[in-house]
């Protein structure tokens, strides 16, 4: 045991001291923190307000394109050519020219600017115009559908009235009544304007609520998906990164020929386990440092600019009627943001992190033993390819399957892949944010422990023979024989 500790300590210290470890440890949290901070920062950054001049000779679009936080539309009644001529000194970001309708419909829109307008702005304008034109068409269609039948009906009634044996004054009076009623219908149809269309518009947002032990919990599928994919990919990366480190370490010892000196002092199994556990601790150290540093960076940003990163801001807006000058859309947006924060709050981070550590360690131990066996069987890294394939396939497969799992976290594929030890570390991590039954989790964890014990036994037998074999191309048949050599 003391010797394993010595080996473990050397593996740990030499790796933690490496420049690459230190760089990764610093770079990781910076990247993660920027993933969290930059979008918020970008959203909050006060972009300079852009004013776009709208020239609409028809006047139909007046005040119909709504302003955004940093985009304003100014409707000007001037000749397009003169505005274009004075564009440089006008201060406008762009000029939107809506040409007069061609065959009763607006078809030509031109956006003049001196630099390439951003895709966002272009899309925003396109969407706004599209919406307005669709409304216009809809209104016209409704009118057509109502007007024509009404006129046909009117004519029919006229004809029938004519044939009726009635005196002229009665006919005239009836005709008059009819005309007034038709005129009323027409007026109603004409009045079918954008206000009505606007009121029809609806945003639908289904809020999933989990029933857990009688308590209701608000969740958010998007948040769960993002988190689970993140966790799954992290596990995949960690297993690959640190598994490969074990393999390279074994190859290094073998090619530098120090291995024979060492195993005259310790058992090959002790050397292998010392290395595997030492590297695992390096991985854990890195993971914990990442979490702590990310937390520190994010907190530092929150403290330095609380207005931008305060999560309670949205609640303020909703609860305070004075601030609620915002339009309905803004309030909805705020609600959505608030939901996301609520959903993040509802995630059991303690469970997530514990499970992450468990599945990282379990998956790592399972694969690292195999990686160590591969390293022991070859003379240099180039020869590892033929043995790497079968070991990495289940790992890669689990990343491929991950998408199906996210779409259907309780389906049979998800279930089986999260139970089988070779894929469970990635797939179970993906399932956990969606909620997993306790027995499934227990079964998966138990099998993973059995799995790594099995691969470690298996790898140990290959390892002890492999490290002493030099200059020999090893086949699978050969590896099979090694399993049954006596110690």
């Amino acid at each position, binding site marked *: 045991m003391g010797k394993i500790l010595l080996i473990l300590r050397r593996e740990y210290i030499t790796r933690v001291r490496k420049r690459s470890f230190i760089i990764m440890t610093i770079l990781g949290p910076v990247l993660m923190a920027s993933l969290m901070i930059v979008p918020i920062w970008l959203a909050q950054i006060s972009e300079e307000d852009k004013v776009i001049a709208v020239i609409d000779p028809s006047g139909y679009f007046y005040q119909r394109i709504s302003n955004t936080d940093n985009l304003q539309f100014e409707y000007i009644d001037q000749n397009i050519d003169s505005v274009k001529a004075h564009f440089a000194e006008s201060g406008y970001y762009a000029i939107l020219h809506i040409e007069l309708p061609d065959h009763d419909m607006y078809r030509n829109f031109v956006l003049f600017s001196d630099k390439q307008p951003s895709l966002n702005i272009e899309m925003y304008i396109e969407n706004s115009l599209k919406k307005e034109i669709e409304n216009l068409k809809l209104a016209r269609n409704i009118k057509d559908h109502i007007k024509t039948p009404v006129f046909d009906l009117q004519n029919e009634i006229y004809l029938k009235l004519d044939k009726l044996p009635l005196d002229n004054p009665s006919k005239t009076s009836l005709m008059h009544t009819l005309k007034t009623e038709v005129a009323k219908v027409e007026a109603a149809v004409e009045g079918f304007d954008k206000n009505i269309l606007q009121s029809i518009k609806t945003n639908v947002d289904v809020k999933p609520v989990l029933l857990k032990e009688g308590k209701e919990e608000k969740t958010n599928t998007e948040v769960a998906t993002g988190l689970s994919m993140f966790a799954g990919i992290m596990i995949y990366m960690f297993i690959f990164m640190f598994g490969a480190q074990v393999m390279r370490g074994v190859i*290094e010892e073998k090619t530098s020929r120090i291995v024979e000196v060492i195993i*005259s*002092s310790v058992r090959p199994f002790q050397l292998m386990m010392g290395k595997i556990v030492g590297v695992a601790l390096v991985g854990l150290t890195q993971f914990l440092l990442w979490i702590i540093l990310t937390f520190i960076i994010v907190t530092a940003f929150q403290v330095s600019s609380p207005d931008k990163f305060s999560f309670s801001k949205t609640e303020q807006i909703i609860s305070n009627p004075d601030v609620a000058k915002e339009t309905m859309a803004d309030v909805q947006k705020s609600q959505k943001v608030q939901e996301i924060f609520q959903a993040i709050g509802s995630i059991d981070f303690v469970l997530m992190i514990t499970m992450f550590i468990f599945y990282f360690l379990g998956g790592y131990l399972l694969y690292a033993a195999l990686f160590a066996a591969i390293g022991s069987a070859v003379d240099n890294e180039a020869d590892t390819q033929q043995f790497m394939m079968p070991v990495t396939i289940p790992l890669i497969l689990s990343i491929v399957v991950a998408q199906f799992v996210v779409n259907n976290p309780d389906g049979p594929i998800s279930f089986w892949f999260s139970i089988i030890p070779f894929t469970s570390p990635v797939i179970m991590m993906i399932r956990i944010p969606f909620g997993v039954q306790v027995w499934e989790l227990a079964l998966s964890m138990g099998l993973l422990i059995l799995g790594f014990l099995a691969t470690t036994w298996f790898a140990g037998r290959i390892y002890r023979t492999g490290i*002493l074999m030099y200059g020999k191309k090893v086949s699978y048949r050969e590896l099979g024989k090694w399993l049954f050599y006596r110690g």
Partner: protein
Amino acid sequence: MPMNLLVAEHIEKRYAAHLALDDVNIAVKKGTIFGLLGPNGAGKTSLIRIINQITGPDKGKLFFNGEKLQNSHVKKIGYLPEERGLYKKMKVGEQALYLVQLKGMSKKEAIPILKYWFEKFDIHTWWNKKVEELSKGMQQKIQFIITVLHKPELLIFDEPFSGFDPINTNLIKSEILKLKDNGTTIIFSTHNMESVEELCDEIALINKSRVILDGNMAEIRDRFRTFEFEIVSEESTEMLKGVSFDKMQIISSVQKSNQSVTRVKTEPGTTANELLAALLPHIRIRSFNEIIPRMNDIFISLVEADSNKLN
């Protein structure tokens, strides 16, 4: 107290279809240098690995100082393998301490001894250098120090001189002899028969997984005596031909300006005195010596004979 530090009895080791060691018996006396000889692939490394408990024998028993060989003996054995190396990126001092700790010595005990060796070899400036900054010869020195650092009772050197220049070879040779004088037992495996003659007290020759010759060096050389003598005399070779000694037969004779060098073979059992007595009345002898068979020749003739027998 047993006389033998290490005894191996009826050792057999099999790798799949290949029998690496077949009923091998050796006994290494305390305080001696034991030469383990044999051509490549004979099974020397397999035997050394078994003694080091790197692998176990399929059959047979090993005794260390009278006790059954076990894990606690690891720290009493020092091993310098033929295929040897160090961690390239690790610092010399740190690495030596790590490896000696693996042998079971504490860091506190090891530091003064390590410093002593570094002073002795005049390499104390290397302590904080990375191994990759050192030349191959320098690395070999470090490996030698690491092997003997924990003061093992039994040292096993597998081709210790490969990679050393003649000066360092002599340095290591004299250190090995000093270790022997201090009571350390040494197993020495090599192809270099000159150094075997120089250092070894006893040998075992392994060929094709079996010990085909073992025993005391002097006795073995005696056993393989050919009773050949070399005589350098002032007279021409013609004079020697006139000597009438029927147990003697001239093999070759070379005339060199004012002296002749003649090789003669005598009948087994003839002593140098007898030959001298016969020669003295006829010639003036400048030098006279028996041609004792060199280990190299014994090695080659035995291995070839053994291989022919098996084929």
